[in-house]
């Protein structure tokens, strides 16, 4: 026997929380990446397998350094939100919370590491 009304049971369940903001963040980051990814592929790509001196000299230049920094930052924020959506679909209960917290922490840690490395090379 339940004392809750049907309306009360439904409120806050499923996607009826903060979906709009999540959707908007994904949309903005995907549009940004649409521009950044081609720039990154064709600046970072040729540097793979180059000598250490060449890599340091190349990413000390403003354009490749800024493209790489923006790509790494925006990519991990896009990943954070996208992976959270996947986890919400397949994992439930406490494991869901654990997985989402792990993904968010990993995303920020990886983004910070990448930005630190590029700053150190560029500056």
């Amino acid at each position, binding site marked *: *026997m339940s004392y809750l009304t049907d309306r009360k049971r439904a409120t806050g369940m499923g996607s009826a929380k903060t979906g709009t903001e999540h959707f908007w963040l994904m*949309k903005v980051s995907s549009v940004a990446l*649409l521009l950044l*990814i081609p720039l990154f592929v064709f600046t*970072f790509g040729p540097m793979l397998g180059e000598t*250490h001196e060449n890599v*340091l000299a190349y990413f000390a230049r403003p354009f490749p350094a800024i493209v790489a920094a923006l790509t790494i930052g925006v990519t991990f924020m896009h990943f954070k939100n996208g992976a959270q959506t996947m986890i919400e679909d397949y994992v439930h209960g406490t494991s869901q919370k654990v997985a989402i917290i792990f993904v968010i922490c990993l995303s920020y840690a990886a983004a910070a590491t990448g930005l630190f*490395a590029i700053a150190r090379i560029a500056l």
Partner: protein
Amino acid sequence: MADVNRGNRPLSPHLTIYRPQLTSMTSILTRITGNAMLISALLIVWWFLAAATSPEAYALADGFLTSWFGDLVMTFSVLGLWYHTLAGVRHLIWDNGIGLDIPTAEKMGWAVVIGSVVLTVITIILV
């Protein structure tokens, strides 16, 4: 909603009884490519950190990424990257309420699949 008697209602048709369709396959591939690229993203961060650290660390990271195994991972990542990018464009189009009918969705699905292979070949040639 543990206190609700759901009764013995029929369930909606389950995923397993469907014949694979282009629309569902391209949809799940978007999710798989997007999440699998975490591996390559972390490898690239490692590469940058190694380059910022020392020539020895760089030699190790760059040696791994340009080994046959690294090449394999990066090639599949490029394919996944272009696939996910084009599939994302399809989502940006759909967001406007355009192209949601099945013939158009399937046409765009093929465009995503073929386009990602073409872009991958171009990337391998240029990079």
